[in-house]
């Protein structure tokens, strides 16, 4: 066990409850490694999660942690950040939590460009409740509620985040655990709304339903279907077919919400002329 895992995870809560081979543990480690790399103060860092298997991560992480209601992690995180803008607020959320019940909060957090980092554990399924499809379940993939294949098209959540105004958007995978550390570092460092979409494996529901084999095979699937953005630019469109982009997908500048809010407070206070 590495030092960051020892220091930044609550040892008394381990081993965690996730199923054998679940990607959640890999992603959680990359996030704590990123926090360690930047050297964030444990006491000034807040981890907020919603509800789902992945959202259980907040309970294992040794920071100020809040395990909130389904879909509402971003709303609690927004409140915390507005009340205490000096805190580093990181949101851990599942694809169902973030993009189904929490979808509206997601786009509006992006629109406001509030300084939060959102890590989406994207296993393409509702793991906790038994494998129902989510808005990120790929078209035609199977789920317990789509036994003949999903008729709905999935969101490209990274594109949605960019369109809605997020100022840092990246995609990683559980397989590329090392690269994920760097993506999360950049996401945290961005002063604005940052999203890291992490393609992960739920071997128990998604994997079994879609006959993807063992957790190890699902990780190798991620390796074989991920296309680093730098390499993708040089490839003909046919060679990109069936693959997804990983790496830094978007970076832009925009006014950050809590900073603007502070300015407004100062302006509204006036110049102490008692008027």
């Amino acid at each position, binding site marked *: *066990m*590495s030092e960051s*895992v020892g220091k930044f*995870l609550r040892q008394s809560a*381990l*081993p*965690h409850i*996730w*199923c*054998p*081979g*679940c*990607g*959640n*543990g*890999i992603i959680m*480690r990359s996030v704590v490694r990123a926090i360690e790399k930047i050297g964030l103060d444990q006491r000034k860092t807040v981890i907020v999660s919603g509800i789902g298997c992945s959202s259980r991560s907040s309970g294992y992480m040794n920071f100020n942690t809040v395990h909130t209601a389904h879909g509402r992690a971003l709303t609690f995180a927004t409140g915390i950040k507005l009340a205490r803008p000096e805190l580093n607020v990181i949101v851990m959320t599942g694809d169902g939590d973030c993009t189904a019940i929490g979808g509206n909060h997601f786009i509006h957090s992006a629109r406001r460009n509030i300084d939060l980092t959102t890590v989406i554990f994207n296993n393409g399924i509702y793991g906790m409740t038994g494998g129902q499809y989510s808005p990120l379940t790929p078209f035609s993939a199977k789920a317990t509620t789509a036994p003949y294949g999903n008729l709905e098209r999935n969101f490209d959540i990274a594109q949605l985040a960019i369109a809605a105004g997020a100022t840092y958007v990246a995609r990683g995978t*559980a*397989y590329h*655990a*090392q690269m994920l550390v760097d993506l999360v570092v950049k996401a945290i460092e961005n002063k604005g709304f940052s999203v890291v979409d992490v393609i992960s494996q739920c*071997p128990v529901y998604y994997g079994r339903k879609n006959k993807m084999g*063992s*957790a*190890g*095979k699902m*990780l*190798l699937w991620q390796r074989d279907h991920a296309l680093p953005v730098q390499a993708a630019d040089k490839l003909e469109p046919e060679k990109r077919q069936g693959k997804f982009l990983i790496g830094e997908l978007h970076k832009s500048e925009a006014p950050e919400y809590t900073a603007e809010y502070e300015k407004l407070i100062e302006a509204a206070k006036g110049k102490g002329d008692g008027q």
Partner: protein
Amino acid sequence: MAVEINRRYCKGCGICVELCPKSVLVLDEIGKSTVKNPDACIYCGQCELRCPDYAITVVKPVKKEEKA
């Protein structure tokens, strides 16, 4: 031992066994990861990096020159 396995944490998912490029690890009779070929280990750390359960630590041996 180069690869240390915390048996209390291991859930036997087999990721380390499948991803080790040198077939160092196997699942034992109760399905937990165990070191079978310690001498084949090249200390690449692939198993530790992707163990979802934090059950593996790869300890690089200290080279003789460095010891001095």
